[in-house]
């Protein structure tokens, strides 16, 4: 798929997120937007998948460690055909298969249950080591937040993954520079992020996390490394794509008014 087509998909996923949050009156919009381009690149270009066979043993795996960004992941799964788009608008309601945070047994196409921060790299490592033990050649991708790097378990997993030379594991760090309580610089101290992953023995790249061509190239580079896991530090913008969400951290979890909804859809190239 060419870059323009992928960019169009990424915009449509953001529009679906706006629609979901607006209609269901809940969910995390701006953390979804900062990872929208990474998820688009993974699901519509990079990953080996078969939506008609969600449990296919040789599929690539994806772990959304920052589980609260799940609206955009659900939108991607629907667009891939794992379930009908209309079901997106049952998000967080009783009897919906779309839980507030990802729950793999309920949602087709979802590989990992997440939500509590700091756990996704370990889960991804387990999947990556299982590929080695079972002599499978699938890849495992995970996205963590930057605030999430405060969880010690991330670094337990980082140490173990490089010890095991788990080169089939690639972790994207969504470096949008915000966490719930403010900028990551104010609240915690993850910087310099690259040096830390490097020190733990990972192959490290830094890219613009909204440039799909850079995302594809970085994954290609990661695939060439066969003795280390890969970390891709993605410089991203929380709320990317909608002007009034950028720089306004309340959109971490906030519901659109009618006016905001219309403006957001318009800015994302949609018609209201």
């Amino acid at each position, binding site marked *: 798929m060419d870059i323009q087509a992928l960019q169009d998909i990424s915009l449509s996923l953001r529009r679906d997120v706006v629609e979901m949050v607006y209609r269901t009156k809940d969910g995390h919009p701006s953390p979804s937007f900062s990872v929208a381009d990474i998820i688009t690149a993974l699901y519509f270009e990079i990953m080996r998948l078969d939506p008609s066979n969600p449990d296919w043993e040789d599929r690539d795996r994806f772990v959304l460690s920052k589980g609260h960004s799940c609206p955009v992941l659900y939108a991607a799964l629907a667009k891939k055909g794992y379930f009908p788009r209309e079901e997106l608008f049952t998000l967080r309601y009783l009897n919906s298969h779309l839980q507030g945070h990802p729950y793999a047994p309920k949602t087709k196409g979802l590989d990992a249950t997440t939500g509590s921060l700091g*756990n996704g790299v370990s889960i991804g*490592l*387990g*999947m990556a*080591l299982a590929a080695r033990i079972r002599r499978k050649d699938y890849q495992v991708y995970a996205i963590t937040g930057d605030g999430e790097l405060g969880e010690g*378990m991330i670094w337990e*997993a980082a140490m173990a993954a490089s*010890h095991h030379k788990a080169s089939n594991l690639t972790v994207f760090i969504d470096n949008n520079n915000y966490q719930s309580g403010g900028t990551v610089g104010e609240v915690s101290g993850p910087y310099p992020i690259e040096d830390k992953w490097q020190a733990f023995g990972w192959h490290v790249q830094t890219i613009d996390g909204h440039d799909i061509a850079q995302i594809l190239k970085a994954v290609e580079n990661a695939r060439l490394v066969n003795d280390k896991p890969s970390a891709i530090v993605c410089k991203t913008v929380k709320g990317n794509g909608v002007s009034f969400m950028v720089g306004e951290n309340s959109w971490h979890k906030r519901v659109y008014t009618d006016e905001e909804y219309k403006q957001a859809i318009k800015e994302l190239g949609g018609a209201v």
Partner: protein
Amino acid sequence: MSTVDSTRIGFRDALLKLATEREDVVFVSTDSLKVVKGEPFLEQFPDRVVELGISEQNGVGVCSGLAASGLLPYICTYAGFLTMRACEQMRTFVSYPNLKVRFVGANGGLHGGNREGVSHQFIEDVGILRGMPNFTILCPADGGQVYEAMLASADIDGPVYIRIGSGREDKVFPDGTPFPMGKIRTLVDEGNDVALLAHGFVLGRVLEAAKKLKEEGIKAKVVEVATIKPLDKEGLAEVLNATGCAVTVEDHTIINGLGSAVAEVIAEGAPAHLIRLGLQDVYGESGFPEELLDAYGMRVEDIVSAAKKAMSRKKL
């Protein structure tokens, strides 16, 4: 099979057997391989040992990924480092998605922790896990029973917890005795004066107490409750209805363990007088295993006198 004279060897030997028979079995170690004398496993199945170093939360997270990818991981380390340090990982990433991960908790109880002291002596593990849906919780009484419980639980859906000790347990059952998965097991049935309900490494003391009671003309039942979850409520209700009084004996805090589980059965339809022996809402301390059980109210004499006290309440 040679004599399985410790719970740790019971685990190790059963794992070897399982790994020989099926390809999905892997051993996840958090620098705990030597704790269970796992070197022979490493020798025979080097590709099926996942060594993660001292990182229990990561260990359980990795197990979640392994199990989600078609493997059957066994993670074995000290009971509290699993159920407390990695409690949330056991809950949210294994129990909630109902994944087949096997947790083997060493140093269960005062007896298991013996001279290590409280940091390595776990009296809360069963209670912590009882609150998690989907878990199967097994408390075998000796090494041979751990071996059998391991084999009997391999195909159970969802997560399984098997409590083991320090490796200094007395034998209660002859090797090869089947593990009564999901069912209570009546070991002594002299009559209906009192029921002694127990599991784990105190079972030998309970059998001893039943002998003493018999010498005094008191007819006891000794019932092993080795599967604490799912609990054989019908079996227990039948025993409790027959005796009308019971003593539970557990090497665990009396809160949330066997005693509490039995109290729930009693309260929900099998009225009986109950006395709970075990840790009386206190921590233990360092000491030799048998003297610790003595010091914390689990002497044979304590069980005998609790049985008489429970019986006396029936007559009120």
